[in-house]
């Protein structure tokens, strides 16, 4: 069977565990059945009905703790044959569903274990907003049997470097990768993250800066055009803390599932279960606009499938560098600070025809680029990027041309330390000392800077302190210091600010429990632990919930301050584009514009006096 990617079925399940949309692809299913028949000599079980699937999903959820599952083999809960028995975090994304055999519903777990082929695997799971999207790709029966035997091993867990492993299965199964892409596209469709195709925004480059005009769209020959996915949308998945925000944002939009929209999407993207084009913006544009005979194809060149429309109108080429800084600043001798930049170059090419664009990546040598990857439209030679000249044929609309990971060439824009010391169980004194934009020259300018101390598990009842600059806002669970308010940008100079203060919390709730059954550890705690903070840490951590595997660590276990800011004017990694050396072939006279902006991601000042998570530096 040729490799590739075909989908047997997909289901969308809402937060009440009911199937709200399902689609089966009989053409693919037929291939599965014949492959199964050839290898096994028997007929495979039929695909479950929506009800059976919902039941199986709920049962698995119960067994595995959550819709995604544990991901690791958990001591008491994981059972042989279940996903978490495999002890691999990717089983949170690629799951198996054991199906109850036809009539009996609940209590036949044992018979299921014998009937290995009544398992649906691999099911790719993607939850977005209110919905869970399950995608079942076509695999070879042997691969599924391998998986089942992996799950059923009774030993202590797979070791690295074994002949039969999940890794080698995944390496050989392109359909899983494809299914993941499909699942993500459906996630975007259901969550409504795609912008409506009708939106038209007139080009007005002078107002609101370049970035605004990038996100707003410009019409093509005065006809409605879709707005391509917002250029930074994908970066929202990069860090766990911003993820929750994004999810919350999606929820209200996704009220009712638009089945017609889904059906249309399927008809264009994967009519027979084999995905051909998952670009939402292209698909919805074609749906909305159709094609007219007055729109002839290109004279000599073939139009790529990812560029169904050609641009007509005033030509120009826009670039934006967008960087996100993640930093962990410890202010300690034994742990070095870590600062890294995740950047991308977004592009919008309003160019007629099918031109090639090329430009040298001037910043590539200056910036400490760790990794770099490109949009499929970029022509990367087989030996990789070394000439530092990138050639690409731009698609229509906004797109991410390249992504990179780099060091922070200019040094961290916010330096300093944060100290919080608990005087008693409920009272603490803190001190901030920060320097903004040290060594940053114009045109770099910081638009705002806010430092937040979150206390998700304590309630603030009292607060005292005045910063040397900026204002302070407190909420029930956080203190927010607006070092640099919006509207007063900092450019060409640096700013030093301090902020001493005290903070008072309402007493710990967990105490009432501590006196009862946790008596022993308390008793021992007092003997082992010397200072008030350690006692407090012990008390606080007793009821800390385990975090999801998508988080880097349990944020709630630490004291830290999170810095958020925005810098415009240039990149901080020294990545840049020289607008003068951008070449367009065939040559046209079109203006090239370039802008850059930097925002903070996880930019953390760890409490110097407390515990902090770190990683070895190699």
């Amino acid at each position, binding site marked *: 069977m040729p490799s590739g990617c075909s989908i047997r079925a997909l289901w969308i399940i809402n937060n009440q565990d009911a199937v709200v949309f399902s689609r089966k692809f009989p053409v693919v299913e037929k291939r599965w059945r014949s492959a199964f028949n050839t290898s096994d000599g028997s007929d495979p079980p039929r695909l479950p009905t929506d009800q059976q699937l919902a039941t199986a999903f709920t049962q698995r959820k119960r067994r595995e703790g959550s819709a995604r599952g544990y991901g690791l083999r958990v001591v008491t809960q994981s059972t042989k044959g279940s996903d978490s028995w495999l002890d691999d975090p990717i089983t949170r994304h690629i799951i198996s569903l054991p199906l109850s055999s036809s009539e009996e519903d609940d209590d036949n777990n044992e018979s299921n274990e014998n009937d290995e082929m009544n398992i649906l695997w691999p099911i790719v799971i993607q939850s977005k907003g209110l919905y869970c999207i399950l995608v079942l790709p076509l695999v070879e029966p042997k691969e599924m049997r391998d998986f089942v035997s992996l799950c059923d091993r009774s030993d202590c867990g797979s070791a690295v470097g074994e002949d039969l492993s999940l890794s080698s299965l995944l390496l050989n199964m392109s359909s899983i990768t494809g299914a993941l892409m499909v699942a993500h596209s459906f996630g975007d469709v259901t969550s409504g993250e795609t912008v409506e195709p009708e939106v038209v925004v007139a080009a007005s480059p002078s107002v609101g800066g370049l970035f605004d005009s990038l996100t707003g769209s410009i019409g093509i020959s005065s006809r409605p055009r879709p707005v391509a996915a917002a250029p930074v949308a994908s970066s929202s998945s990069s860090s766990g803390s911003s993820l929750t925000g994004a999810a919350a944002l999606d929820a209200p939009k996704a009220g009712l599932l638009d089945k017609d929209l889904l059906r249309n999407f399927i008809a264009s993207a994967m009519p027979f279960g084999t995905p051909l084009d998952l670009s939402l913006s292209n698909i919805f544009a074609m749906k909305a606009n159709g094609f007219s005979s007055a729109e002839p194809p290109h004279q000599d060149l073939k139009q790529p499938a990812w560029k169904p429309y050609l641009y007509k109108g005033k030509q120009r080429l826009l670039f934006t560098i967008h960087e996100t800084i993640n930093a962990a600043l410890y202010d300690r001798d034994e742990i070095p600070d870590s600062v890294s930049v*995740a950047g991308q170059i977004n592009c919008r090419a309003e160019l007629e025809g099918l031109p090639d664009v090329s430009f040298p990546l001037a910043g590539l040598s200056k910036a400490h680029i760790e990794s770099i990857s490109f949009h499929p439209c970029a022509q990367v030679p087989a030996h990789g990027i070394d000439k530092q000249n990138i050639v690409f044929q731009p698609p229509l609309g906004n797109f991410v041309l390249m992504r990179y990971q780099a060091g922070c060439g200019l040094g961290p824009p916010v330096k300093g330390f944060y100290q919080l010391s608990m005087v008693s169980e409920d009272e603490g004194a803190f001190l901030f000392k920060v320097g903004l934009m040290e060594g940053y020259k114009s045109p770099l300018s910081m638009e705002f800077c806010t430092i937040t101390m979150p206390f998700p598990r304590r309630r603030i009842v009292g607060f005292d302190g005045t910063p040397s600059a900026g204002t302070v806002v407190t909420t029930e669970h956080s203190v927010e210091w607006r070092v640099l308010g919006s509207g007063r940008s900092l450019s060409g100079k640096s700013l030093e600010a301090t902020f001493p203060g005290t903070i008072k919390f309402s007493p710990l709730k967990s105490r009432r429990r501590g006196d009862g059954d946790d008596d022993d550890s308390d008793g021992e705690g007092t003997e082992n632990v010397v200072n008030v903070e350690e006692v407090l840490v012990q008390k606080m951590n007793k009821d800390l919930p385990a975090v999801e595997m998508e988080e880097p660590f349990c944020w709630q*276990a630490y004291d830290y301050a999170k810095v958020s800011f925005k810098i415009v004017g240039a990149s901080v990694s020294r990545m840049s584009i020289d607008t003068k050396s951008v070449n367009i072939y065939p040559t046209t006279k079109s203006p090239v514009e370039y802008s850059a902006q930097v925002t903070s991601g996880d930019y953390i000042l760890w409490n110097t006096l407390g515990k902090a998570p770190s990683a070895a530096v190699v």
Partner: protein
Amino acid sequence: MTTPEKTPTKPLSVHDWDVLISDFQDSNAPRDWFTSVFSLSSLPDLALTSLLKKDFPLPSKLSILVFLDEFSHTLFPQCSHETSDRFIEALRAIVQSPTTDGSNGLKEQALISFTSVLVTVESFSVRHVEGVVDLLLALVNRPNHGFDRQARAVACECLRQLERGFPGLLSDVAGHLWTLCQAERTHAVQAYLLLFTTVVFNVVNQKIRVSLISTSVPLVPFNAPSWMRDGSLGLSQGLGADQKELRRVLAFMLESPYLFTSCAMMEFMGMVVPLASALELQASMLRVQFLGMVYSFDPMLCHVVLLMYTQFPDAFEGQEKDIMRRLMLLSKETQIYLVFRLLALHWLMGLLNKVVLSGEIGKRKSVLEMGQKFHPGVFDPLALKALKLDLVVQCYVSSNGLSGGDKSKSAGELLQECLVSVSDFKWLPPWSSETAVAFRTLHKFLICASTHSDSDPSTTRSLMESSLFQNLQVLLVDMTSKFPILVPVVVSFIERLVNCEKHQWLGERFLQTIDEKLLPKLEKRCLLTAYFPLLHRLAENDTIPPSRLIELLTKFVLSLVDKRGIDVGLKLWDQGTEVLGICRTLLSHHKSSRLFLGLSRLLSLMCLYFPDLDVRDNARIYLRMLVCIPGRKLKNILKPADTVSPSTHPSTFFTVQSPRFRHDPNKSWNLSSYIHLERVTSLLVKQSWSLSLPSLGVGNDGYSIIESKVQVDEIEQDSSQELQLLPDSRRIESGKPTLRVMDAKIAEVLERLRRYFSVIPDLRHMPGIKVRIACTLRLDAEPYNSIWGSQNQSPELDKVDSSSPALFATVLKFSSSAPYGSIPLCRIPFLQGEPHWDKNVTNDEGSLEIVLLENTPKEEEKEGLGGGASVTVELEPREPTPGLVEVSMEANAESGQMIQGKLESVPVGIEDMFLKALAPPDEHEDTIPSYYSALFNALWEVCGSSSSTAHETFALKGGKTAAAISGTRSVKLLEVPAETVIQASELHLAPFVVAITGEQLVNIVREGGIIENILWQEEEEEGGQATASSSMGVTGANRDPLRLTYIGYGDDQEVPMTRSRGKMGKIKMLMFLPPRYHLLFEMEVGEESTLVQIRTDYWPCLAYVDDYLEALFLL
């Protein structure tokens, strides 16, 4: 076949379709509303009708089309030719209808759905397929047509699916398709290219002899290849297409990949790679063309390259490192979805596996140098950290194997470095995800050198000697001693190893290390609580000498004993119990000889000095077991019931045992001859009869139960026997109190009784009062052995058993025909046989007769240690009558045999029913004697003169049921000396004595010192009460028809005469008879004879009382 009789005149409405479709989705079949009117096979026709209707809304048409597609296997399995024809016609009609705005979607969906049906359902003929292909080709054959480019793309995809479903279908027109591919310039070109590639792929794959570039066969009208029409597959097959042509075609195809979307690229490469290998094409061509895709951030493109690489590893010689580096960097890109970063790492691991397995040292070296680049970053999600750590481990191990382990970092250093990224597992709660990741890494680290797939046992041994393992051990011990919070995790880590067949040794080794290294550290601290789970595991493992553990526990107990002032209460009990639990584990897993010295010291220390009583008790039991029971048997006893099965435990003990024997009825029938269940206290009267009265009878004359009307839960309790038996007429309205004339004395009596009755539990609404009969279960060794011994197949066991056999898990079940309620069964975990039991045999035989008193108490003492097991039979009598309790028994013999059968019944006498009356909880301790005395007087009064209180009812506890009292009187003259009376009373009835009057009697009894806490009245108050009672007694006696006083003493006239002679005083006794009756004795003790006045509110008991009194005093 269409079924005309069922075809309705009215077609389905939009709503009908919606419901029908969701029915199908939920359960794969239509529901009744549909099947009752239509037949399933008419559905396609209905669908076609709806589709062709002009006024049908577009969304519904689309839904129907998708529905036909999804459920084609149910809908079209045996559709007729006419239906098929209609089907094709319908498609033609839809496709060829003039396009109006917005119906675009319909055409495309129709093409898709009809094609899908055609491909999946096998009942269509080649003719039908040809018809559809013809239609599609006509559509496709208009390259660069601007308006319908999307429809053309869809048509291409439909053709592609048909070609896929019927390989070779389009092979004849391949040349035309190629021309179309070359001509097409709109974005639809991707669909053309894919179609053409599929055709070429099938031609090569099926080895069809056909020209790929010739256009001699006309495109339309389309005819399927002749071999397909004839169904003669074999004939057409040849050597396949011309190689030259094929190369030309392939070269053309390879020019165009930049036109594809990434999904299409995957599909395309899925066909091109096999083609290339079939053509033995130079794979380096592919590499040059496609390797660049690995630098794309589209995961599908990366994967395409990887698949190519795995297919042609040689062509990528020298580039492995680049590819792997790229994958590593891909995993670092924070902008892409986490799952793809995880996938990248998995791919990398898969590739590494391949490289390592391939055994090319050069490649391995270069690849493994990357190892240290995998260290996780601080903000990497935990899932990513886990996989990165896996990779570090993998690189370390493989490179270590390569270089001999000297050059690289020491394992310990590396491990520390690894764990830093999840360092905070050490002080976070044990269930935190960080902890899970850390220990997962430890595990991988540990077993990577000796995987499950490798069958060579020497790897485990070498692993155990390796520095890695040593380091890990040190690390584990350090961690455990510093962070007690980690103990549960360490325990499960070790358990995971121990439970693994291959790595069991490792787990045991860890335990040994902990025993050696950790325990000494713990000794200093004496803070063991957190470590108990670990100690349990240590105790379980018999490869570890228990001495250190016992010593540690001893020190711990000592510290507890010292601390007794500070720690009080539950905590001590808890810790003591934990320690005993470990002792128990030790006992059940180690040889007694190994334990004996240390453990007996520890246990005796505990049972002597431990501050908590319960712990002392239990320690004593364990100590006794350790001392008395031979090791093998002891282990068996201590095993929890469910683990006593041969399969679960591999230890040698169980290997001698054959599978469980089933119950052998032949051997069990005479069970009662060697297993005896006897009362501890024999009955005075062996009751050979029992007066059994229907409850109704009791109700008539003894009690009347009056239901209060507010009772609601009556209905549910329909099993309540009283309720069923109580006639309606007896329900007196008690809700409204009736006015009655009564004097102060009666009022006081009533008040007192009300208070008293409110304490008695209401049998119908709550657990009643229990009567407990203490018994002993004995096993006679000799007869037992003679019957069962021969079955013992294990000679080893025989040696032990010949002396004293034992029974395990004995379950006694009780039943009785007497109204005793349900009797809970009784379990005896262990019963040891006794060598001789002569005495008991006589006892057994004589039990039918009345047995003398002296027999019983001494036996009890003697039993103390060795003998039988004590059993308590718990009755909850509905009526206080004597009876028999039948006993059946089940037990396991040591050999696993099952023993079943009936034992001798246990007799229950009237004296078993004698209980002390209840006192209200608020009654002060000091006033209890007077309370009882007053209660006696009140009951005496009420049972004697029913007239004044006959209409009174007394609410029982809970207030739902009330009891009325109707008394009966009797007398008995006992012609025995006062001394006998007093002695017998003291011996048997002491608890029931409530008052003694008369100076002489008081003095005698007081001196005896046995009867205490009663009301002593030195003055005999002769006055009104006696006369009153006697005078009332006359009327009462006359009125009462069922008075059972006989043997001539019943005549009241004689009473004053006997009493006058040498009277010493009175003993008043109050016996409570469960569930709520009473028996009152007033013994007027004279020197030569004693007159017992008897009153009761349960007259049937008088029948037994007589026998009882005679047995008690006269014999």
